[in-house]
């Protein structure tokens, strides 16, 4: 990543005033990055940004409330930060935001599917539009566009929307504005098939709550309805009904808040297409209220406000 050094310098300058800076560093193999907590100057050297910087680090912010935190954000991550600011879940003066122009991150599931079971990964090189992966003594060449995350194709916010330090040149958003082809295809399915689809998908859920834990907007943490008896929305049973209901709770609690970072789906070890539900919710909210979450820290979320006369709601016609 060409702005990496610039970013390191920028963090180095700011670090004395901060308790921690959250960024990424190399993970357990060349295909994975891992969140990196920079507390001392020497930690800075290990920082790495690039197509493997998949994690939305904003998820850590509410938990670090009260501390002086620096955070490195992709454009999409910055929307989560904005949303957290808007909901007063973090304090602006406590957060120092480092932005950079993001050219897209990979989708590990796509790589896994393309490569099959490879064993240990030895190296990975990304040159222009090609990814070369060495694993099990073989070299695999993949087109970058085949393994990029879906959300990146229609990315409208590649540069951080909010930042204190921005490194590099801002790039322009993707020409493709609609990223919901999977949603559109799904909505063309007959209703009974959709119902069957979700039953099948939810049956695979192992109730690990990785989706929730990865979600930057799931701020209830220890007080999630999923594990509460008062209120007692869900039993602890391994039933499709309860698992599906949990996803509905998650989707509804994100209505008007979800920035579609896709962490829920990325984190899901069972590859359940959870983002579909959120995309649908966002689509309706956008149509009804011309509202998009995580763009304006001063905005009021649509479900926490109202108009006496709603232009787009024709409920009296029923």
């Amino acid at each position, binding site marked *: 990543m060409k702005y990496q050094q610039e970013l390191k310098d920028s963090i180095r300058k700011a670090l004395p005033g901060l308790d921690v800076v959250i960024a990424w560093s190399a993970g357990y193999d060349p295909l994975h990055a891992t969140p990196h907590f920079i507390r001392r100057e020497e930690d800075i050297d290990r920082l790495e940004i690039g197509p493997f910087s998949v994690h939305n680090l904003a998820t850590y912010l509410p938990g670090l409330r009260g501390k002086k935190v620096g955070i490195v954000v992709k454009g999409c991550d910055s929307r989560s930060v904005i949303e957290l600011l808007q909901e007063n879940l973090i304090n602006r003066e406590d957060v120092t935001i480092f932005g950079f122009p993001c050219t897209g991150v990979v989708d590990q599931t796509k790589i896994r599917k393309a490569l099959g079971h490879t064993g240990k990964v030895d190296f990975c090189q990304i040159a222009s539009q090609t990814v070369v992966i060495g694993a099990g003594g073989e070299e695999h060449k993949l087109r970058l566009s085949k393994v990029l995350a879906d959300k990146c194709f229609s990315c409208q916010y590649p540069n951080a929307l909010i930042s204190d330090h921005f490194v590099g040149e801002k790039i322009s958003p993707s020409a493709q504005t609609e990223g919901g082809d999977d949603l559109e295809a*799904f*909505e063309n399915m007959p*209703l*009974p*098939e*959709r*119902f*069957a*689809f*979700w*039953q099948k998908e939810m049956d695979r859920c192992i109730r690990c709550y990785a989706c929730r834990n990865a979600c930057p907007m799931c701020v209830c943490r220890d007080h999630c309805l999923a594990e509460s*008896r008062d209120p*007692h*929305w869900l*039993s602890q*049973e391994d*039933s*499709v*009904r309860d698992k*599906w*209901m949990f996803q*509905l*709770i998650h*989707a*509804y609690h994100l*209505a008007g808040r979800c920035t579609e970072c896709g962490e829920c789906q990325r984190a899901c070890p069972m590859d359940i297409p959870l983002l*579909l*539900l959120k995309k*649908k*919710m966002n689509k*309706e*909210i956008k*149509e*009804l*209220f011309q509202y998009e979450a995580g763009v304006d820290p001063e905005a009021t979320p*649509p*479900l926490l406000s*109202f*108009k*006496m*006369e*709603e232009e787009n*709601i024709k*409920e*009296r016609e*029923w």
Partner: protein
Amino acid sequence: MPVLKGKELRIVGFLCNWCSYGGADTAGVGRFNQPTDLRIIRVPCSGRIDPLFIMKTLMNGADGVLVSGCHPRDCHYAEGNFYARRRLEVLHRFLPILGFEPGRFEYTWVSASEGQRWQQVVTRFTEQIHKLGPAPKIAGPEASATLRQMEAVL
């Protein structure tokens, strides 16, 4: 009590206490005949109705859910139905993604004086649900066992 087979479907209503529950009472006092499928849950205000209650009701196998509150501007709590309108509209548009027909859930406004309107709303909604037939059911263990477990912890 089980649903009367071949006769009724399971329809649940969430009604605000001040307008629509009163409207349903007015319909009763006026002896306005209605289909018997609907079971009413009384809540203070349509603003109290968390859309998740409706999802939960559908997940639990209800064939239809009807919500009714005070007409906009007439809310006993001034603003409850304004919030409700947004939330319920979002839900109404969201449900089809799950595979539920949009008509399984409706929301409307009935005031305490509108006994006749209530009769029409109930009749119309019940007909609509009967036209759709029983809702798809989620495969899985029977409720009774689960519910007993849930009740046992209380």
